[in-house]
């Protein structure tokens, strides 16, 4: 089918006699290409003065010259201030009190700044009700130096000026007058912001303010509102509790905003023979479960029955072991009277209300001054979500929330994009901001002003600690402008505080200095302006439990929380305290279910943990290829999955980890039913840092029961190991058992660190604090998987392989004969179905007889008189003998250069991220060993401060990053030559023991034996 069509290359071809066409037929180019002109013909080349040999000479000379020139030392420029601020002395840190209120974490903090840059977050000791400075809050300073942050406002995807944005917003606000426009915000808990929003609503009456907590506590807030009239969350003081019964509430984790571990830990340290008793009924293995005296795995649907039984109902329908535990808990609660408390995470307002009624008369609950930190109403948020999808909502202003990422509605993203008026206040171009028509770049809280009422009557202030890094404006500043409330939010805030909160005579400067101010002034935040509908009384998720399939409990991880700091490498690399796995979320299943479904976890040749993959389906939504981690203690028939992962927009590719579990967050309820999982081919590589999960009866974490602790002699439950000398058993601490000449440590300071295993909840705040203080590098997922993590401080987690650790020891002691030992030791390698759990922070033990020091061929590690084991990085040649000879495995080797290396593109690889580095601690290079220095830069500074003032060091003045960060007081640091100090007392405590004491290393870190309250009735 030949075609007659003729194709024309140019108009010229129409002209038959065109010379060009003719020429082109003969020659590809119309004109000859002047190759000779630019290459030169033979003659010119020969005539040229630069011959090939000359050229080579020049190249050789310039190379030589360049390399010679490179031998010169670099010229380093120093640029002082032109006008130095009064308060800044270069080289001396300043501290500012501030408050984080990012919608998920609320805490009073102290910000350490050096030369005007914030470098570390610390606890504000002046704040008595300040929330908890957890791992995420510690890491939040790095989130400010995030290179993926929005650098300025955007209008329709184009960079714009603030004036343009304000004009555009005003236009849209006027255009949508009378229509349904929703202001969807995080919980601010801010008196001034509430007032501004009220003014804003007065000006634009069509605007609805809806509070959206990404991770909701709606049922509890609903219950509190129904019962007491104000929308808030009851506060608890667990230090007053004798019996704590928790049903599905991970209160040591992030339950209702978290922050309860400090008070909880106080009650857990045996005092006068007493400590609190903790029952935990839960589905996932949580931090609370891990710390509980009695933990019972119960599926979410059965948790309701447990709760009903506890509140007076019968135990029929419960499994025998659960019923038994419930009866025991009931008995103990009855005995404890007003010092007993029930808390629950069951997402049912009716049950929450019943629990509030139960607790009402008890000492532990504080209902008069409740928490004001999670005010969102799930049903109201659902209305907005559905309104946007259905089209009834015409405009959406989002502040500090990311609904496109976190709304459990598959059509929401598309509907949002189609909205005419979308304005996103965001720090990053996240999933929502990237689709919004108008984007207002907001500053980080460390660059902002603000206030918060974390607890009724306890007001806190947020103050900027650095000039905004980018062209950003606070939401509040915009509101001030839109509502014509003066010239700046700062003035507005100050005026408002002076008029209300400080009206009882408080001083603004003092309040700003302290960061907190307690006032009797009644101010409601958020609730006034936010819409609330009738509180829901039923729980959709749980009634659907009959559908079959698995029950899913969605939880937040210690590291990422609700996911807003997903681009923070410190948090990504923080191993989960329970699973010890970083850089991932995964489905946790019980061993029994895993066996049934053929799901497996196994270790490969390099030690890395691998796992099967599953598709998780619920209500038509499927998450594909989700890795599976077999979790000891997971209630059979239930699975767990962490929220906050699967972020993609404005998150660096290395940190786009995990799957987005918000897809299953129906009704904003953490428990869901009717989930099916189906094994698919393939395997997942985890970055799990603990390869061995059990102690196999060894003496690593020493623990005993309260009864033995109270009644038996210390030698029975905390014996000093003995060695044989001349066929005599002598204690290993005896000088006769010592091969070494001991240093004289009686003079000057002698630092010791005490870790109370009863108080340590495994929260991981110390790990991040250590990261920040000591410039610990981030190594990334594949290196973590190879066990090349650089954490100077790790928190080991052990499972018992029997029902309890005591059972382990007994089993080990009863092993006899080769056959038995092979099989039984093999069994002890795997954790029990519902194991006891224990945490143990391990850092360099600073041994007085350090095995590492004797094997270093270059004397790079040596001992100080003050008890610290020094590490001179510049002397280290990287033989790694020390790491091999260390019985505690706490030395970390720099396999690579982690700073300024594109292969490790984390915070140390960009100028912004490097601003967080502590200038007092060197950044280590490739090929050297590093380890915990017991924060020698901090002890040296404390000593120097005292010397400069000409005074002795005060008791309790010495601190390390981890001891300062420890919310529960588990880590204590000090000078044992100061006999008035707390650390001296702790060293003399009968619970004190050294890790692997039998080795004879005489560590300067010691532990306090864990005591479990197994008292019954």
């Amino acid at each position: 089918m030949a075609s007659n069509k003729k194709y024309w290359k140019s108009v010229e071809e129409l002209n038959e006699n065109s010379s060009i066409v003719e020429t082109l037929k003969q020659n590809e180019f119309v004109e000859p290409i002047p190759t000779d002109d630019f290459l030169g013909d033979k003659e010119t080349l020969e005539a040229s003065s630069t011959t090939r040999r000359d050229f080579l000479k020049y190249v050789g000379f310039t190379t030589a010259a360049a390399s010679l020139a490179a031998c010169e030392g670099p010229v380093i420029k120093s640029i002082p201030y032109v006008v130095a601020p009064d308060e800044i002395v270069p080289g001396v840190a300043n501290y500012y009190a501030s408050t984080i209120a990012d919608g998920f974490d609320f805490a009073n903090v102290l910000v350490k700044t050096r030369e005007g840059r914030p470098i570390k977050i610390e606890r504000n000791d002046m704040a008595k009700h300040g929330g908890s400075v957890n791992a995420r809050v510690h890491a939040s300073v790095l989130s400010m130096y995030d290179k993926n942050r929005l650098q300025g406002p955007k209008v329709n995807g184009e960079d714009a000026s603030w004036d343009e944005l304000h004009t555009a917003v005003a236009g849209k606000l006027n255009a949508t007058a009378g229509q349904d426009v929703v202001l969807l915000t995080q919980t601010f808990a801010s008196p001034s912001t509430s007032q501004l929003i009220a003014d804003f609503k007065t000006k634009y009456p069509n605007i609805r303010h809806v509070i959206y907590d990404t991770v909701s506590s709606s049922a509890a807030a609903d219950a509190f509102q129904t019962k007491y009239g104000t929308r808030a969350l009851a506060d608890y003081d667990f230090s007053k509790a004798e019996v704590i019964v928790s049903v599905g509430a991970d209160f040591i984790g992030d339950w209702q905003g978290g922050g309860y571990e400090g008070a909880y830990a106080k009650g857990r340290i045996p005092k006068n023979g007493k400590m609190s008793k903790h029952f935990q009924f839960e589905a996932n293995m949580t931090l609370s479960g891990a710390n509980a005296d009695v933990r019972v795995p119960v599926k979410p649907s059965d948790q309701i029955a447990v709760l009903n039984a506890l509140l007076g109902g019968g135990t029929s329908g419960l499994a025998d072991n659960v019923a038994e535990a419930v009866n025991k808990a009931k008995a103990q609660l009855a005995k404890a009277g007003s010092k007993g408390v029930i808390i629950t995470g069951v997402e049912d307002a009716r049950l929450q209300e019943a629990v509030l009624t139960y607790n009402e008369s008890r000492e532990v609950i504080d209902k008069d001054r409740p928490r004001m930190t999670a005010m969102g109403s799930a049903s109201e948020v659902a209305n907005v979500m559905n309104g946007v999808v259905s089209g009834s909502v015409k405009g959406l202003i989002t502040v500090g929330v990311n609904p496109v990422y976190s709304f459990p509605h598959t059509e929401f993203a598309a509907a949002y994009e189609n909205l005419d008026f979308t304005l996103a206040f965001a720090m990053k171009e996240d999933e929502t901001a990237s689709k919004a028509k108008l984007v207002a770049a907001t500053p980080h809280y460390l660059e902002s002003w603000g206030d918060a009422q974390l607890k009724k009557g306890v007001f806190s202030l947020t103050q900027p600690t650095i000039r905004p890094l980018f062209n950003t404006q606070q939401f509040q500043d915009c509101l001030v402008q839109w509502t014509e409330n003066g010239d700046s939010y700062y003035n507005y805030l100050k005026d408002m505080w002076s008029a209300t909160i400080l009206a009882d005579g408080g001083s603004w400067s003092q309040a700003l200095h302290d960061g907190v101010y307690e006032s009797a002034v009644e101010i409601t935040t958020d609730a006034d302006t936010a819409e609330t509908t009738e509180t829901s009384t039923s729980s959709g998720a749980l009634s659907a439990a009959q559908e079959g399939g698995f029950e899913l409990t969605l939880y937040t991880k210690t590291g990422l929380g609700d996911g807003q700091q997903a681009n923070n490498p410190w948090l990504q690399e923080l191993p989960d305290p329970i699973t010890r796995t970083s850089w991932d979320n995964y489905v946790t299943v019980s061993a029994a279910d895993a066996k049934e479904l053929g799901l497996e976890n196994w270790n490969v040749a390099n030690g890395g943990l691998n796992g099967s993959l599953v598709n998780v389906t619920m209500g038509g939504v499927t998450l594909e290829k989700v890795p599976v981690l077999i979790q000891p203690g997971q209630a059979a028939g239930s699975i767990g999955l962490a929220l906050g992962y699967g972020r993609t927009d404005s998150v660096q590719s290395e940190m786009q980890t995990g799957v987005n579990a918000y897809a299953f967050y129906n009704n904003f309820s953490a428990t869901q039913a009717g989930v099916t999982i189906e094994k698919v081919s393939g395997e997942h590589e985890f970055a799990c840092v603990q390869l061995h999960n059990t102690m196999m009866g060894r003496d690593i974490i020493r623990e005993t029961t309260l009864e033995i602790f109270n009644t038996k002699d210390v030698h029975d439950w905390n014996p000093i190991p003995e060695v044989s000398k001349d066929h005599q058993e002598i204690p290993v601490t005896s000088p006769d058992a010592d091969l070494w000449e001991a240093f004289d440590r009686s003079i000057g300071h002698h630092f010791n660190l005490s870790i109370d295993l009863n108080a340590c909840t495994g929260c991981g705040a110390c790990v991040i604090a250590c990261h920040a203080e000591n410039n610990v590098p981030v190594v990334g997922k594949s290196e973590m998987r190879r066990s090349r993590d650089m954490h100077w401080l790790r928190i080991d987690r052990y499972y018992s392989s029997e029902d309890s650790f005591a059972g382990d020891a007994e089993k080990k002691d009863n092993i006899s004969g080769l056959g038995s030992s092979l099989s039984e030791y093999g069994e002890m390698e795997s954790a029990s179905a519902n194991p006891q759990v224990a945490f143990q922070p391990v850092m360099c033990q600073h041994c007085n007889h350090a095995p590492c020091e004797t094997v270093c061929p270059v004397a790079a590690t040596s001992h100080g008189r003050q008890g610290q084991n020094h590490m001179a990085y510049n002397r280290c040649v990287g033989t790694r003998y020390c790491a091999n000879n260390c019985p505690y495995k706490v030395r970390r080797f720099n396999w690579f250069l982690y700073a300024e290396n594109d292969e490790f593109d984390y915070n140390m690889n960009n100028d912004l991220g490097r601003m967080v580095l502590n200038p007092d601690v060197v950044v280590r290079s490739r090929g050297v060993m590093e380890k915990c220095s017991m924060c020698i830069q901090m002890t040296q500074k404390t000593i120097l401060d005292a010397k400069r003032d000409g005074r002795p060091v005060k008791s309790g003045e010495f601190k390390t990053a981890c001891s300062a960060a420890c919310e529960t007081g588990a880590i204590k640091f000090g000078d044992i030559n100061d006999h008035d100090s707390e650390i001296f007392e702790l060293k003399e405590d009968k619970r004190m023991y050294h890790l692997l004491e039998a080795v004879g290393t005489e560590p300067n870190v010691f532990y306090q034996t864990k005591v479990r309250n197994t008292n019954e009735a």
Partner: protein
Amino acid sequence: MFENTTIYNQLRAKLMDNNITDRMEKVPYRNLPKKWSFIALVLVLTLSFSQSTFASTSFLPTQAADTVAGEKLFKANCAACHKLGKKATGPALRGVGDKYDREWLYKWIRNSQELVKAGDALAVKLFNENNQAVMTAFPTLTNDDIDNILAYTYTAPPKPVIPEGDGQVTPDPGVSNNIILAILALMFGMLIIVLILVNKTLRRFAESQGVELKEKEKGTPIWKAFAENQFLVLVTSIFLLLSAGYFAYGWMMQVGVDQGYAPVQPIHYSHRIHAGVNQIDCNYCHSSARKSKTSGIPSLNVCMNCHKSIAEVAAATQVEGQNEYGVDYNAEIQKLYAAVGWDEATQAYTGEEKPVKWVRIHNLPDFAYFNHSQHVTVAGVECQTCHGPVEEMEILEQHAPLTMGWCINCHRETNVNVADNEYYEKIHAELSKKYGKEKLTAAEMGGLECGKCHY
């Protein structure tokens, strides 16, 4: 009087010309030796100007009042805000006695605000012209005092930048030395040529006369003899190897040691003038040395504490700078003004700041922690112990090698200053008992432990 002022103005014009030439001929210190002749030329030129100026100084006003007493009073009371020849915080004062009525001046100087408040038109005008800067009242000054001060204001402007008489001669010895050397070299050269020629002529002469010249017998050349003696070769090579090793070690040990490093700084700042001549305490500018790990490079606002009123150095200093160091100090002060954004004309900050990029001289590696306050405040070490005679350095240089050996030596030798420091009370008592001596060195206190400086 009037005549005098015009003459003065002429003088000023000339002076300014002079200054301009000076500035154009500004010679960087580094290239000084190369430019001797150029400098000489400049000096000759300036001298010729200065002679004419000198001649005109005889027209100075003669006053009954005491200019010496006036000068004293002026410097004590007025100099902070007033200059004679140019505007500072207040207006220039030269010839102020002619501008205003004497009685009015008495009142103004004793209490200017009173006049302003009284609504004196002239006073209000003056007050407004000078940015409403309130002049300090001097009620204690008598009329005579004021007369003396006013008399002083008539003194001639400072002598222009003139080199001293020998300025003209200075370059000469250098030139003549060179010439003598050249002539000597030339003479030696000629002598050698003459000798060779004589030798040649004599040989030729002998040849033509048939005289047989004895040829030296050829023995084994010395190098061959040396090469054949194996023992000598062995000894020599061992010697060479050892000395090569010695020098290689020496060379390598100085890698990264920048003793004597004195880079050119963006502003020629003379520690000699500030710390030496003017005896400003080091800690005045490097204030953080007392409380921080860094001594701190002073921020420019610290410079302006003094330089707000010191826009020019003394004439003699300027001459010295140009002669000895080839530096125009006044131009360097202008650089400071440009950096800090100070407008001399309006005596106000413009807000246009250009931070100075100093070249850092003392560069400790990152892995060594050093704290100034420990040494300055606690130990009471003099700055000069490590930084050398800074008060004599025109351009600051690194005095100490800053090597670890150098640190350690000092820690071994220096006794810890425990006096009046309660921190040391207990540890000192215990350690002295242990070591059996009263004085303890830093090393005995634990100052040699690795972790004290490396973390």
